[in-house]
Structures are given as C-alpha cells and as structure tokens.
C-alpha cells in the first residue's frame, strides 16, 4: 500500500525525523491561510502518490498567500499526468503547503529489503534529489549499502558509518544518526516495504530536513496496523483492481485484448507469455485462486469483462484440488449470471478434466475448448483478432 507525501511526513515526524513546517489543504482558501501562517513564501505540492510530480508541474513556488491561493486553485481538482501515472493521470485532491527551505546539499536515504540476503538494507547517497534507480544504474559506487541484522536492529555505529560516509561533519552527524535510527524504526514497526527520504537536505543552517518522503507498506502486514489502513486513498487505486482484491482475486489490468483467467500466479504468468508468443497481447493478469469455485469464476468473469478492451477470454485452469467438472459447472453458471459477449476459450486439465470439457462442449454456450496450452493460446488470440 502507498500513502501520500503529507501522510508520510506526519509519520516521519512521529519517529523524530525533522520535516519542513507545512499543512495539507484541499481548498485554495486553505492554501492562502496556510501560506500566511508559514510566513508567505511557500512551496505548493500536489498530493498524488506517483513520482515525477516536479517535472509534471505538480510542485510550485508561491511568493505570497494570494499567490499560494492561485497556485492551489490551478492544481486542485485537476488530473496530474507524470511518467508514472499513465495517460489518465491522478486526481489532485489536496496540496501540501510548506515553508521554503534553503538547501546546501541534497542527499538520499532509504530503507528497504534486500531480497538476495533477506535482510533490511539502509541505502544512502550523496547524490540525492534524483531517482535512486538512475544513480544505481549509472554510478553504483555513489550508493552506500548497509545491511541491518533485524535481531539487534539498527545500532548507532551503523548510523555513524553512514553519516560519515555521506561526508557529514559536526552537529549534522548526530542529527543523521538519530534520523537514520528513526527511519529504520518506522520501517520495522510499521512493516514498510520502502521508507525513503529523497531528498534529505542539509540546510544552510546545517540542519537535516526530509524534503520529500515515500512510504510503501507490506499489504500482508496491514492487519496489524489500523493506523496505516486508515491512510488508504481509494481514489489512487484502479477500481477494477480494488474490486478484485476485495473478492480475493488477484487482478492486474494490462493493455492487451485477450483477457485471461487462470488459477495460480505462476500458471497465470505462463498463460500471458503464451498469448504473447501466439501473437496476441494479454489484457490482464488474473489469478482466481487455487480452488476456483463457481462463485469465484463468476466474479472473475465480471471483472474481466468490465475492461472494454477485452475481445476474447482464455480460461486456463489446472484442476488439482478443484475438479474439472466442478469448474466447468462454474463456467456454465457464470454464463447464466454474467452477460458474456466475447468468445471464451477454455482449457481444463487435471482431475476430471475430460468430464468438464465434455460438459462445456454440450452446454450449448458456444464455448471454444482446447486440449493443450498451445492450442488454447492460439485459439484465444485468433478469437480476439477475428
């Protein structure tokens, strides 16, 4: 799960990480009041969860409360398009009004999981303010990586190593040690998958300040974080993906025309690859779950067909625990309850698959059956193009 910058900064502040003074507002008048409170000269930051806001015009300066109101009025309610949002952009529901900060250096600081070592890792770089992936690709030597033993946690000496490694000196070192410890504690206690401050600035007064922040959370751990769940912004989610998730179906919308319904994530990816190899493009990833009950199959059809780009559907179910005849009945049942207007290609394999296929062949539904994976993909692509 992702949250907005203003929410991330509020959490960081709870963990002792200094952030600029600011206020999140959802009206132009609110922006004027906030700017007046902050001394007039402010930065107005559109609150969408995608990156790339600066280049897209979502972060602007204002020299006075009146100008802040004008800037906020231009941003609020519009859809901001960045390189991460897709062409539809994201709705700007609020703006963060912040004091302006005079920075002398821009650093990067982040905590994430290193999959290879299975350990949390703190990443720090003196090259802040740009995307860390870019730094990693072009100047990997500019990134300090410090693994953390999760049993003992992040001890002060690790913070010192990083602080000196970033070239900090004097009072900034102590500030950095506290700040790094706070960020790690937040990462650990709130089950983040990423806790990132970019840039972390050193002000002209030699103070460290989190100028921008991104916190992503482990969906599997949200059950123990009611406070984080409350920060969810459904406006930022794809409505179909959200509906699917609520039904326990794993669905990712893509851009192609062949919808697919598969049980199991690996087989679902394999099916998408086969569609591509057969000359088509998958419209989605969809895992109905291992059991693939009639209920879930019906739900999955509804979600798949809500995507107007879908020209054909490929159902590929490996019946192991779920029996093929039961799944076939589910498909027949789904046909009764959902108006299916595109060709449906079905391949069932495993327990009672033959009975299931025969049931579909005699259902009068016009379902196209296929015996092998290859045949199923070819027929689905053909049906989508035909």
């Amino acid at each position: 799960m992702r949250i907005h910058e203003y929410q991330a900064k509020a959490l960081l502040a709870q963990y002792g990480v200094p952030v600029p003074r600011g206020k999140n507002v959802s009206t132009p008048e609110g922006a004027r009041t906030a700017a007046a409170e902050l001394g007039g000269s402010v930065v107005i930051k559109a609150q969408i969860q995608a990156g790339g806001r600066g280049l897209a015009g979502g972060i602007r300066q204002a020299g006075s409360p009146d100008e802040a109101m004008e800037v906020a009025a231009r941003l609020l309610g519009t859809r901001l398009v960045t390189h991460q949002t897709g062409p539809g952009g994201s709705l700007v529901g609020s703006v963060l009004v912040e004091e302006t900060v005079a920075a002398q250096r821009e650093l990067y600081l982040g905590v994430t999981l290193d999959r290879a070592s299975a350990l949390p890792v703190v990443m720090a770089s003196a090259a802040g303010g740009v995307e860390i992936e870019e730094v990693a690709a072009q100047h990997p030597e500019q990134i300090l990586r410090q693994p953390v033993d999760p049993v003992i946690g992040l001890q002060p000496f690790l913070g010192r190593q990083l602080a000196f490694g970033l070239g900090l000196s004097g009072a900034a070192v102590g500030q950095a040690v506290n700040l790094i410890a706070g960020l790690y504690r937040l990462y650990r206690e709130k089950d983040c998958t990423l806790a990132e401050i970019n840039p972390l600035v050193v002000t002209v007064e030699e103070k460290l300040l989190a100028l921008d922040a991104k916190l992503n959370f482990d969906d599997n751990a949200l059950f123990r974080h009611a406070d984080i769940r409350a920060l969810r912004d459904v406006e930022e989610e794809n409505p179909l993906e959200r509906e699917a998730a609520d039904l326990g179906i794993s669905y990712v919308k893509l851009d192609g025309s062949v919808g697919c319904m598969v049980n199991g994530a690996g087989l679902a990816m394999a099916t998408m690859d086969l569609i591509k190899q057969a000359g088509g493009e998958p419209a989605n990833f969809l895992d109905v779950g291992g059991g693939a009950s009639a209920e879930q199959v019906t739900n999955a059809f509804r979600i798949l067909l809500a995507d107007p780009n879908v020209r054909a559907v490929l159902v590929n179910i490996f019946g192991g625990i779920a029996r093929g005849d039961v799944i076939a009945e589910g498909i027949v049942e789904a046909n009764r309850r959902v108006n299916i207007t595109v060709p449906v290609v079905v391949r069932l394999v495993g327990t009672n698959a033959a009975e299931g296929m025969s049931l579909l062949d005699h259902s009068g539904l016009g379902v196209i059956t296929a015996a092998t994976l290859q045949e199923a993909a070819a027929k689905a692509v053909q049906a989508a193009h035909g």
Partner: protein
Amino acid sequence: MSILVGADTRVLVQGITGREGSFHARACREYGTQIVGGVTPGRGGTDFDGLPVFNTVVEACAATGANASIIFVPAPFAADAVLEAIEAGLDVVICITEGIPILDTVLVKRHLRDKSTVLIGPNCPGVISPGGRCKIGIMPGPIHRPGTVGVVSRSGTLTYEAVAQISELGLGQSTCVGIGGDPVVGTGFIDILRRFQADPETEAVVLIGEIGGTAEEAAAEYVRASMTKPVVGLIVGQSAPPGRRMGHAGAIISGGSGAAADKVAAFQRAGITVVPSPAKIGRTVARVLGHP
C-alpha cells in the same frame, strides 16, 4: 531415493483442525504419507481421523517421533508456528500459508542460520516424492509418477503443469519442491539444486523461475559452476510490465532488476536448456534425457 522427504518421513500437521489443514491432512494420508499427528493449540487430547492432536509441537514430537511438519496456520500466526517447529528440532518444516508479513519471514530466516531445520516456503505447494509415496503439500497426487526428474519451482499450479507434461510423456519425478512465491523463502533454488545433484535417483532437473529478484541468476551461476546433471529452465512473466506485482508477493520487476529477459540470459550463459514455451516443458525434458 528422493530429496528432503521419503517413505520414512513422519509428519505433523500444524493447524490440522482448520479447513485447509484437515482437507490436506486427509489427502496426504490417502496418498501414502505417514501423517502421525496434528497440532492445534487448545485442542490437545482430541482426535482427528484417529490421529492424536496436541497443544504444542514439542509435545507432539515427544509422543509421535515426528521429524517433519506441514503448516496451515493463518498468516498472522504462521511465523510463530514456524518458529515453534524449528525450536522443536524438526528436520523439515513446510509452510503452505500465503500472506505472511515479509519482515516476519526475515526474522524466521535469520533465526534458521544456527539451526539444522530445512524450511520450505512459505507460500508454497510443498514437497512430493512419488516413489516414496510421500506427499507433504497441497499438490494433486495423481498427476505424479515415480521417476528421475527433479522439479524445483517458485510456483504452485505451474509446477503441476510441468509435472503433468512430464508424466504424460511416460517420464516421472524423483522429487518436486515448490520453494514458494514470496520475496524471502526458507530454502532457495541453490540448496535444492545441490540436493538434486547429490541424489542418485535424479537424472535431470527442471528449474522454474519467474520475474522478481535475482534468485534465478544466482541459481544459474550455481548450475554453471557445480552441476553435472542436465538442467532444463523456464522463466515466466516475460509479458509482465515493470513495477506491477503479478500475484506472488515476490513476482515484481523493481529498481531495474528481476526482468525475465535477464534471467533467461543467465540461464543460457550457464548452459541451462531453456524451455521455449510453457507448453513445451515435458518435451524439452524428454529431449534432454534422450527419451523418445
């Protein structure tokens, strides 16, 4: 022979009275697995299909001589159940549960460093040895045949697909291991490959990977440096866009790593025979083994 599990493995089911646990405990027993008891806190002293149920794993081990367990405990409590099994000294612990918080698994994995327990999973279909009639998992038993092909994979149903294709051609499996679809799992590809290399019954290995992380690249390097048996490899997720999670918590291309093309290239460099399409897993194995 097989790896990890076999005819002598004595298995506890943690969460045996739950819906999943009871269903699969029965299915494993029917297959021939020696299920010796179950654990559900608060249900100790009761009975499940004639099997004793215990409150704790330690108690269950003392009474039954179990040396392995399979875990169906719900995600919020699963890491605790895994730690309980490790502390009880079981040789093999297989965690089926999906949706465990990743930092819970990180702590479990760190704890495993000083232990002899082999943890398979979480978020996995389990392990099956068709020759030993030992199934400790949720896979459909009847698609498997005793044979000489080792299968290791991050996936569930895709592994069944591979197994079915192999069995259909008259070949069989020595052992099939689903290592799990999470970003961090107890046992990785390399440890399983090492066991297959050492197993006299295994003649060839099918390695099924997917997008996300760099475990396939590391496995390829191991194959190149240390394996003499033929390895057939498949990577799925070639059509997945970066930054989107494909069902499995671990199946995501992020920060410029984890793309399918990189993994396929690593396989090729390592001399792994790359399966040209998910529909041709069985045929590729048959060709490598010189099977008609």
